[in-house]
């Protein structure tokens, strides 16, 4: 790791100002991706602005079916929040299976969403739940937010404050972990709510998280695992690496989607 200047931000505004004053600044939340990247010298920001201690960016609020999760809420907090579990158990289950306990107690939902790792779990949840990403500048719909592998609609210096969504009537996440990293080789989040059925896939696509529209249509007319029999995703659009080729991942998308539906149908 190369030398870096560490700043602890007191607020989002403070963070924004520290960031703008830095030569090559970088926000750090839980650091579960950024720190390993820096250790491998694949990232070397001049300044780290730590927002993990900003109190009003942390915590879960559930009001009826409306859910707001502060960006600095850890995976363990999401997994263990009783009111959230009552409203949307699927996102608690998803958070409870990210990484290991150490990762879950440091890593944050905001950090995961902002990083948009193609194998991260939360992007699938955000997309399937039709979440809104609230930043210090604006609100961005999940459909507009995830713009490709490790790429988002966030502008330079823009900071995620929270994510919010309406809890669906039914929701489930089915994940097939990579045997080595335990990241998702394929994770499918299925939500059935007022706006219909949404199916979001992470881990498998070669351009990051995506919505499986054929599957959404099929499930919209018949919310049952069998409804997915005639659907498919293209192997050409899938990631291919030493853990599995595109055909395998395309198969996993369907299998995991069926399992998610089976869990709630």
């Amino acid at each position, binding site marked *: 790791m190369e030398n870096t200047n560490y700043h602890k931000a007191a607020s989002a505004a403070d963070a924004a100002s520290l960031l703008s004053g830095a030569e090559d600044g970088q926000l750090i939340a839980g650091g579960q991706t950024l720190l390993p990247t820096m250790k491998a010298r694949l990232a070397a920001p001049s300044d780290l602005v730590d927002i993990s201690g900003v109190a009003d960016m942390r915590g879960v609020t559930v009001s009826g079916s409306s859910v707001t999760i502060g960006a600095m809420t850890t995976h363990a907090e999401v997994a263990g929040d009783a009111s959230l579990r009552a409203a949307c158990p699927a996102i608690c289950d998803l958070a409870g299976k990210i990484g290991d306990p150490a990762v879950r107690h440091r890593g944050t939902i905001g950090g995961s969403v902002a990083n948009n790792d193609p194998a991260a779990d939360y992007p699938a949840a955000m997309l399937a739940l039709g979440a809104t990403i609230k930043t210090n500048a604006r609100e961005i719909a999940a459909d507009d937010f995830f713009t490709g592998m490790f790429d988002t609609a966030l502008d330079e210096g823009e900071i995620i404050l929270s994510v919010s969504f309406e809890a669906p009537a039914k929701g489930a996440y089915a994940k097939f972990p990579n*045997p080595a*990293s335990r990241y998702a080789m394929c994770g499918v989040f299925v939500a059935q709510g007022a706006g219909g059925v949404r199916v979001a896939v992470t881990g498998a696509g070669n351009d990051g998280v995506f919505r499986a529209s054929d599957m959404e249509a099929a499930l919209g007319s018949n919310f049952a695992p069998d409804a997915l029999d005639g659907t498919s995703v293209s192997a050409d659009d899938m990631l291919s690496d*030493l853990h*599995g*080729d595109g*055909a*395998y991942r395309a*198969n996993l998308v369907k299998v995991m989607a069926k399992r998610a539906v089976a869990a709630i149908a």
Partner: protein
Amino acid sequence: MSEGIGAPVKRKEDKRFLTGKGKYTDDIRMENQAYAAFVRSPHAHARVKAIHKATAEGMPGVEAVLDGHQLTGDGIGNIICGWAITSKDGSPMNMGAWSALATEYVRYVGDAVAVVIADSKEEAQEAALAVEVDYEELPVAAHIDAALAGDAPQIHENAPGNVVYDWEIGERDATEAALASAAHVTEMDITNNRLSPNPMETRAAIATFDEAEDHYTLYTTSQNPHVARLVLSAFYAVAPEHKLRVIAPDVGGGFGSKIYIYPEEIACLWASMKTKRSVKWTGDRTEAFLTDAHGRDHVTRARMGFDGDGKIVGFQISTKANFGAYMSLFSSAVPTYLYATLLSGTYNIPNIYCEVLGVYTNTVPVDAYRGAGRPEASYVVERMVETAAREMGRDPADLRNINFVREFPHQTPVIMNYDSGDFEGNMRQAMEAADWAGFAARKAEAAGRGKLRGIGMSCYIEACGIAPSQAVGSLGAGVGLWESAEVRVNPVGTIEVLTGSHSHGQGHETTFAQVVAERFGVPLDSIQIVHGDTDKVQFGMGTYGSRSGPVGLSAIVKACDKVEVKVRQIAAHLLECEADDLVIEDSQVKLPGTNKALGWHEVGLAAYTAHNLPADMEPGLKEGAFYDPENFTFPMGCFIAEVEVDPDTGKTEIVKFVASDDFGVIINPLIVEGQVHGGIAQGVGQAMLEEVVYDATGQQLSASYMDYAMPRADDLPSFVVAHHNTRCTTNPLGIKGCGEAGAIGSPPAIINAITDAIGNNDLSMPATPSKVWGLMQSAKIAAE
């Protein structure tokens, strides 16, 4: 409860390990310590045109930037391979030069080109990044086939076609004839996947040169500090043997990878002389993936012939073994004398012929890794027998049973002479524990849940207790493979045992003490095991090949024999009785049926006060012994794996795993069970998860835990571990050894189970979900 042989005593060493008080090489701090960071090749094959050091030399904290020309200029010798293998045509093996720091060529990604010595680790690493090396990239052969192709680049000038040797064992013509006349011949292509050893503690070294004494001290992560000192002095000429102290303190796992002498230890010692500072290097996990000797990596074509009754009549094996870019210390022996000599398995096979082509590639060197040749042999034999049973429509257990060796000693056609065993007994025990008979019902039940259930067996045998010195010498070994011990009874009766074995997780401080405690009837706590320091311990050969029990403990027993003779003589003299009539037990030396007795400590004190010893007896109570085994030992066992495959994802779950082992006499069943658990976990890793993957350019695609899948607790079932032991007849305690068995016997059992589940024998390791699913898809397509 007894603390002696057979008692499940908890490990003495765990107090310090479990409380974080272990002292590992990286925990050691020397005064005036500097840090080494290596400049490593990013290319798998290149000519080193120039090394630009000036920028790095001028950076803060930098003491020196040293390269291979300086190293060889100082007379530091090339790294050797200590076992000479002779090819079929009588020619010696073609060994290319391996300098600790490359001079003209780099031959794998990670090959060290220079070393930076600086005040801090960070400064050393920063400066290492600033060393610019001009490379002329050369064509790469990263895999066996690429290295043997007609247009392959020449990796070492003196190894034409990249062939290290073309070796054979057994009778070719007789085996061919037997196969030609066989009623059934099973033929298979079998790959043994390349593995990274991954000990929890990465390699480390700290070298100190004492200018006033002209003396060197090296702390290092070694399984065999005396062997390290020997080669560092005799071959690398870093320091004379009597001026070099090598200490291997607590070592956090080795699995073979810490047997060898690596460039880093050599460079640290040499740099400590150059800079007059202690030089420390602790490898990180990436360096471990890039530079620790890998294991396995065989490609084999095998043919096994059977007569009409199912008896094996001939077995022909042709193997290509990957050595990587250089010949590591014992590498040449692994795919030859540690592999082909076990190809008779647990069976009577009248004709065996095996040929092995050793191949250089542009990859990290390959050497012994837990099991070392024997897992490769077991995998070939047990997959062949299982597949043959399926092809012939025979019950795989019955086919094994009619071919088992039943009379001992049994001379195989491939050197080994098995001394003992009850192979059917272990198989029956395992089948009962696994409820073999009830499998069909479980398979049907699983099918109802949409799962494919399979069962697989492996009746492995291995050779431990490495090894009779004269025998291995006649086969090309450069060293003897005896072991040494010294038993010191102190004046107060406490005992120090100095052993040439080295513990890096095996629990010697407990098991060795148990043997001595039982022998002299003294408390376990009164015994201290001393190992790992060439200044404290007499020359010893170290720990690998499951040799510490059969060989290391035998040396201790031999030294105890001598101590006992003297104890009896002293006690008989003092008690005025016959030495042979005395009994040693309960911390006493006593004459049964009388009140004549001496406390154990009183004998010790008498020996050291020397006020009243038998005439002409020397004072003191300390004896040493060297033990050279008369034969290998032959642990064997039957492992049964039962799996369920999810046909939708290809994911395999091991639902049951039974091990029935024959380890001979067991000193500590708790430690043995731990060894079996760890070994099976590594076997599961090889069978289902682990694989080093190189791309065609020689880059390791799997050089982190993001891509190299180690077994975790949830990959493993709860193991059923049973024993059906027969005494080893060739060492005093009757021990066979247990350190590698789990890793040797488990991969074929697991693959046999998965292939049974999916009905397709054409599965290679690791059986990852994508590979299993892909195989099922191609079978489906082929059927349509």
